[in-house]
């Protein structure tokens, strides 16, 4: 019984961090939009970590799942706006669409790309991201290169005040829920057979295969789960917070790079790592931009390099090693 409850102890620091962020955002004037940005980075890291951290595979095309998630929400709103009485249900439909589209894409990509390893896998996923973007623009589907702008439809469906609150507050709360859910799923995977199988394949895929682990199955589970969270994140943080979709913006590879940095900074494969990575990344960029606007990247880049050199396993990886034999060990994984 005791063992059963201690299983969830690692969630305490994660949830505590999110609670503190929420309270700061709500109670300190002018902090909500900063908190929203930090939540986005934490959620991005948490979602990406499910695949990168647990399998060791680097998916450079990860942003494509956020892109299709954004389109899922955008299409639900633009195509169903004319139906009277849908109200807030349209947002739920949007999330279902985002989830469906991200799942579909991840299954299609996973079935092919997960047969590859290392650099070949990374290149294939970049190809998917770029290919999808050019397909949308070239085939002119979903309004092609012109994209979709749908603030007016949101105002029409929900009313101006509700739509405004949705864009400036509730969209961020949804990001928070996604981050928390991703943390919960990560812990569930770590503590279950899935996690053991993924750890085995991350350390040596061939050996895992020889030991009778169905590596393809577990890789696809991690890949699809991670992609689903990306789709939901795109729907909440991009489509609802910013009611427009332009293909070059939602398939921008820069976000994948950010996700990689966040996960590596915090500690790849750890539960708390993406939260720590997201906070270090977001806070340092934000305050450097305030104090030295235009020059922050000159300082930020060395900070990243120093952290990576000092803590090759990430900040949480280092803490994990340091508190290995202490009571804190049960909170940091």
């Amino acid at each position: 019984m005791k063992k059963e409850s201690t299983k969830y102890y690692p969630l305490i620091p994660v949830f505590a961090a999110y609670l503190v962020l929420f309270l700061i955002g709500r109670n300190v004037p002018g902090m909500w939009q900063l908190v929203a940005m930090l939540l986005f980075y934490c959620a991005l890291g948490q979602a990406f970590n499910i695949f990168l951290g647990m399998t060791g595979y680097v998916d450079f095309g990860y942003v494509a799942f956020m892109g299709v998630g954004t389109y899922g929400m955008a299409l639900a709103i633009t195509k169903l706006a004319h139906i009277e009485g849908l109200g807030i249900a349209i947002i739920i439909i949007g999330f279902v669409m985002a989830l469906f589209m991200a799942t579909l894409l991840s299954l299609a990509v996973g079935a092919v790309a997960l047969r590859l390893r290392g650099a070949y896998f990374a290149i294939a996923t970049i190809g998917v991201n770029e290919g999808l973007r050019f397909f949308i623009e070239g085939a002119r589907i979903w309004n092609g290169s012109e994209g979709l702008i749908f603030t007016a439809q949101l105002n029409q469906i929900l009313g101006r005040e509700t739509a405004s609150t949705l864009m400036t507050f509730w969209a961020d709360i949804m990001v928070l829920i996604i981050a928390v859910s991703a943390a919960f799923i990560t812990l569930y995977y770590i503590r279950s057979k899935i996690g053991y199988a993924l750890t085995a394949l991350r350390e040596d895929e061939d050996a895992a295969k020889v030991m009778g682990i169905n590596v393809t199955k577990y890789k696809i589970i991690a890949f699809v789960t991670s992609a689903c969270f990306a789709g939901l994140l795109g729907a909440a943080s991009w489509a609802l917070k910013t009611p427009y979709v332009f293909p070059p913006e939602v398939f921008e590879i820069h976000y994948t790079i950010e996700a990689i940095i966040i996960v590596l900074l915090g500690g790849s494969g750890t539960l708390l790592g993406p939260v720590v990575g997201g906070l270090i990344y977001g806070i340092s960029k934000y305050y450097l931009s305030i104090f030295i606007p235009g020059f922050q990247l000159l300082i930020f880049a060395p900070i990243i390099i120093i952290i990576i050199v000092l803590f090759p396993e990430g900040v949480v990886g280092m803490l994990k090693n340091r508190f290995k034999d202490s009571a804190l060990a049960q909170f940091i994984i």
Partner: protein
Amino acid sequence: MKRSIFKALFVIFILFGFLPAYFTLAEAKSPEKILIGHPACLSGKYAKAGEQALGGIKACIDWVNNVYGGVKLEGKKVPLKYKYYDCESKKEAVTSFIGRLITVDKVNVVFSPYSSGLTLRGAPVTESHGMLYMDHGGANNKIFRQGFRYIVQTIGPATSYHQGTLNMIHKIDPKAKKVALAYEDSEFAKMVMHGAEEHAKKLGFDIVFKRTYPKGVTDLTPLLSALKATKPDFIIGGGHFEDGQLFNRQMADLDINSNALSLIAAATLPAFYKALTNMAEGVMGPSHWEYGVKYSAKEAKKVGLDWIGPSQDEFVTLFKKGLGKEIIPDYHAAEAGAQVLAYVLAAEKANSVAPDKVRAALGDLKFMSFYGGWDVDDTGLQVGHSMVAVQWQMGKRIIVWPEEAQTGGVAYPMPTFAEKAKGKVAVPR
């Protein structure tokens, strides 16, 4: 006892009677400063445009504070201050900095970052705070169809890019009827194409060719061969520098000649002529503003508009001082600077810095500055600014339209590619 109660009541009456009056007076008092907030794009993909905008804003604030004497509110001159953060051309940073500017820095107005996407990203935050949001970098007309109440545009909308050039051709060659449209398949270029098509039809032109080409195109010969067959009098199109250059080069290869050719984004850049040399002679391009425009107080008077702001040369000097660099401002700087002037005039007209009042005053405002005309419709869309048409003549960029801004006459028709290959240059009529 009765007397003391009466005294106490009297004091309370006086206090309650005068305190509100005091606070009303305190509210009506002009502020000590007017703070402009700006999530500037100083790094990332829009860094070049962002730096220009920063220089333009600093230049016009300098002019307002030191030449104009400040913003006249309640009979007092109030200085402008400027608070900016680098949003790195990223949407997450745009909202977080706008939130900070409004709630922590307590700015009086927010200037948008560069691009339509980033402008749209900030709009819900400014709207939720009832904050005036001035757009100098988002040209997409759709921004103004979303029902935002506090957004006002200074940059000309994308649909207006080729209107000036079409007006000019219509005036100088009424017989020219056949127009070909060939634009890049991008959000911005297609918006420009829609505007050009609509305006051309309004002027009585026939659209004989209309097609888009993909981004990053490396061969335009199939499209240009089809275009050649329609024998247009006038070709307009483009998207970015690379495809604009390719467009011109392959027109020369296929010997496609028309009276005029106007390409967005590419043709106004010095690098365009450097890459194509004589082949670029006579080619035109629209621009929001170019160094050399002749807008002045005199021109403003001619068209019945008020004039405000530095002259073009003063602006250039202040721009260089603001950035601390020896570079010539481009249109990004001019439109951002003109936005400062629009705000100043509107605040003075409203005699207030309250966003609602200034927004209403901006709606009624019409003026001219070194940037050209300024006027917005009910939605906040810019309708008073004309794009200038620039043409390469003898290796120089000449502003040929509108008449109040031109630095020279138009070379029309432009020389054929065969003539240009023999060294012929574009000479004005």
